[in-house]
């Protein structure tokens, strides 16, 4: 990085500052997307990037914000470089700020390479379809919305819900059965509070995993526009560790809603035609350039699994941030306030949750042959129970048939026994499926239409152990 900083053209021809943007005139030969160093009147240096260039003008976004800048004394140097992050395996165990500068007081990192933080898209032909079951130890995920290695599966949450606890629990417990490899975690914070950041740091430290973690912190009081690069730094680090150093990486990005707000701010400053709720029309594509940086590649040992976290404003799943995320990611884990209020942890409502890659990761030889069918039956029963709950709210329980009452009870037990578990409780997949069976056993056997008779004979508590496998 240092060499590029010494070269480049410097301009003092700023004509306008608008929000996070600078307009510079009488430029020449500026490259689209190049990195810019801005020197403030009091000598501080900030970085930015070219958003648009003409023959004699350039528009620049400043990551650390434009406060304190003016048009007369501020100077802008164009470095001729794209945004790069210096990488080495020594980044493991280190903490960086949201722009990629180490902030842990550790030794200087001697880069083995400097990578463009925007990465390069993976050729779809080169992708290997994810199929290795990750046991997270959380029943409502493993049993119902299985995560596989190389998947991007976000947590859809709301403010005040325990998404951090859930994410940390997954990071602690995640493992691929039958394999020794552990996950290294790359953690990127965008606009979260220092309490939240500390929680993650301490959780990694407590279990002695800190030397397998890379952290990037852009906190609530850090510059908002910097949030546009923080996740890209994290993913650049992840790609380096996964695809050049054969590691299995779990990336946690939080909170993507703050990221989207930074995007909206830039778009507003550029006076672009706003899309839904003021977010730019290209937000889908922009988010995709982050989320698609997950996966497996033929011929590479390492993998990138992503778990972005986002808080849905007003718990509204149709808000553009969760909506566009859901359109890109391979499912979502939905945290629900009503379950949280009932004291259920993790408060995961499995109905609006989904894992699109589940099917590849489960079944005989991977989890258990009855997994798909048990999950389908649990889904059916829980959905039935929940809709009856709504009905009961209107017409009272007396009007229900015996069958309906059983489903109503099922839904309650399902939440209390299957979904609910301890923050440190790590259930293996057998245990998860067996709890599922115990609950299903309370329904008449004829109701279990989603399950093959052989599997009923083999796994139903009524017959278990009585029939040859």
């Amino acid at each position, binding site marked *: 990085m240092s060499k590029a900083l010494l070269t480049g053209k410097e301009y003092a021809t700023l004509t306008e500052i608008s929000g996070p943007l600078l307009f510079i005139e009488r430029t020449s030969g500026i490259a689209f997307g190049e990195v810019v160093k801005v020197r403030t009147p009091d000598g501080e240096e900030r970085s930015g990037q070219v958003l648009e*260039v003409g023959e004699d003008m350039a528009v620049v976004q400043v990551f650390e914000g434009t406060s304190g800048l003016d048009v007369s004394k501020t100077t802008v140097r164009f470095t001729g470089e794209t945004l790069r992050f210096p990488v080495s395996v020594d980044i493991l165990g280190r903490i960086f700020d949201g722009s990629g500068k180490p902030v842990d007081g550790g030794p200087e990192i001697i880069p083995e390479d400097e990578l463009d933080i925007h990465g390069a898209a993976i050729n779809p032909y080169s992708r290997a379809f994810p199929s290795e079951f990750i046991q997270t130890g959380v029943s409502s995920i493993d049993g119902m919305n299985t995560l596989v290695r190389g998947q991007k599966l976000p947590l859809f949450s709301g403010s005040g819900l325990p998404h951090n606890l859930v994410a940390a629990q997954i990071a602690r417990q995640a493992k691929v059965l039958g394999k020794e490899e552990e996950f290294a975690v790359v953690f990127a914070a965008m606009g979260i509070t220092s309490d939240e950041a500390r929680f993650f740091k301490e959780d990694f430290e407590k279990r002695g995993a800190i030397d397998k973690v890379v952290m990037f912190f852009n906190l609530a009081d850090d510059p908002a526009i910097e949030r546009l690069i923080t996740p890209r730094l994290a993913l650049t680090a992840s790609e380096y560790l996964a695809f050049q150093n054969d590691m299995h990486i779990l990336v946690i990005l939080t909170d993507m809603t703050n990221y989207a707000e930074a995007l909206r701010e830039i778009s507003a400053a550029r006076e672009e035609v706003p899309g839904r709720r003021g977010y730019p029309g290209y937000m*889908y*594509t922009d988010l995709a350039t982050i989320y698609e940086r997950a996966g497996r590649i033929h011929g590479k040992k390492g993998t990138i699994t992503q778990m972005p976290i986002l808080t849905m404003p007003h718990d509204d799943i149709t808000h553009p941030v969760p909506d566009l995320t859901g359109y890109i990611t391979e499912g979502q884990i939905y945290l629900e306030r009503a379950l949280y209020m009932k004291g259920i942890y993790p408060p995961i409502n499995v109905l609006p949750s989904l894992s699109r890659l589940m099917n590849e990761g489960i079944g005989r030889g991977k989890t258990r042959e009855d997994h*798909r069918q048990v999950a389908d039956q649990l889904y059916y029963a829980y959905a039935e129970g929940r809709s009856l709950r709504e009905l009961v709210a209107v017409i009272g329980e007396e009007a229900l048939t015996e069958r309906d009452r059983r489903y109503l009870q099922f839904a309650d037990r399902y939440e209390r026994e299957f979904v609910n578990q301890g923050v440190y409780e790590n259930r293996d997949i057998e245990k998860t499926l067996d709890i599922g069976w115990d609950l299903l056993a309370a329904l008449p056997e004829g109701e279990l*239409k989603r399950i093959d008779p052989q599997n009923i004979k083999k796994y139903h508590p009524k017959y278990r152990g009585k029939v040859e496998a």
Partner: protein
Amino acid sequence: MNGVGKIIRISGPVVIAKDMHGAQMYELVKVGEEKLFGETIGIESDKATIQVYEETSGMRPGETVERTGKPLSVELGPGIVGQIYDGIQRPLTSIQELVGPFFQRGVTIPAIDRKKKWEFTPADVKVGDRVAEGDVLGTVPETPLVTHKVMVPPGLRGRVKSLAKEGAYTVEEDIATLETEEGLVGLQMAQFWPVRRARPYKTKLPSTTPLLTGQRIIDTFFPMAKGGQGSIPGGFGTGKTVMLHQLAQWADSNIIVYVGCGERGNEMAEVLERFPKLEDPRTGKPLMTRTILIANTSNMPIAAREASIYTGITIGEYFRDMGYDVALMADSTSRWAEALREISGRLEEMPGEEGYPAYLASRLSEFYERAGRVQVLGSTPRIGSISVVGAVSPPGADFSEPVTQNTLRIIKVFWGLDKALAERRHFPAINWLTSYSLYYDSLEEWYSKKLGLDWSSLRGEALSLLQQEEELQEIVRLVGPDALSESQRVILEGAKMIREDFLMQSAYHPIDSYCSIEKCYYMLKVILKFYERMKAAAERGVLIKEILALPVVEEIARLKLVPVDQAEKVCKETEAKMVEQFENLYASGGRGTA
């Protein structure tokens, strides 16, 4: 000599260049030092606005723009089937060989292998014969499922001066020479066609045959026609992609063009991994040997995303011209529309509804209009078709948005996906109350001939049961199930059987994934017979609970899992058991008296 212009402005994928006199709209240009492909999308005096098909970062004003004088085109000839291309027909396989798993800019690779030799067999054409556009000069066995017909390109006619003998040729070698009014023209197996222009045909014909998909709710209730236009809108996770994959797998079509337009990379990887292992249920040959994939995923350049659906449909038209039935799926047209919107925004055009350009509607209908069943060019009559199904991804699953609405005005088959059904894991989550097929009436004759005259009444009865269920559910929601009469409860149970035992169909179950139309018929018949008997029994005072406890109920629920070739037999056996069990119920004294 084509001119060279100079870049004066760069904003993402949109570049403005000056000194571009004589540039044409939609002309292919090479932009910047790296000669990235681009296309002229606006001209104002000597300034051209260009959409660039690759990342522009690092590009500077002052760099050159070379004109090619040609429009953006696809290359058509043997070697396309089984391939996977990006939005501007670059083969992703060769790109990987060249640069590895991550894309790099500025890669130029021909769409069709130049060195590969194909076995060409001349058609019944002699030297001296007059031939014209669309006439077949010979055939090439392209894949186990596709015989490629080498045709005289549109716009050309003449006398055959020479014709290649049976043998192996590359796509660049002359296989014929024509004496035309403009002189001698050499013809090769490969030809080019501009993607934004529909390939010509003789006449459009009505659609009278269904495009069978193996999906019960579609083939039974809301059928697609060969040559038809359909759309499948739905919020995220409601099953658009799975359904399009199902169509690509099971549709009874000669050629499948699957366009992954601005969606996930892993979904293309899934097709690439699964299709070569799957067999065509009709021929037993690997499905990949009739499939062409266009993959311009969400993280790939948006200008190429915009082009991708045209690349796909032009390839489709080419195979249609051979007289084949082609089915094209585009997942998702919303991402295409967003690419259009983004480019329009960069051009600072006047935005229409929700920022989409005012020409969104006309572009959409131009695209869907390229579907159809037609009499293709050529002296001997041939009929070909392209069926088009587009996924739509409405923000917030709200169908009132512009892309859904403009699409609905064009298409004739609407498979509306329902978030509530998807959450309950009722798949396919196609809402049976709101979906429709405007083709059903013209296909009815086909169904009656194929399945018998009772087909339409079975279908009508099933749809009516579902309709009645909805009305009764309304009552239940207001006053509870107690308020229903016994006969009304019978209707609810009948409708539930149709929903759960017939309409639900798992794409992941090896047998259930595909259901022949005959199997649909037998299943529907058994279920409705059961319903009739249930009704009769209930009228005679038998408790519904007792009826539902009959062993045949569970058997009906498992009919889905009966292999297609045993469906008739098993359904008839089930029916016999049903009759017997009802008789026993009466005999055992139940409530009713025999």
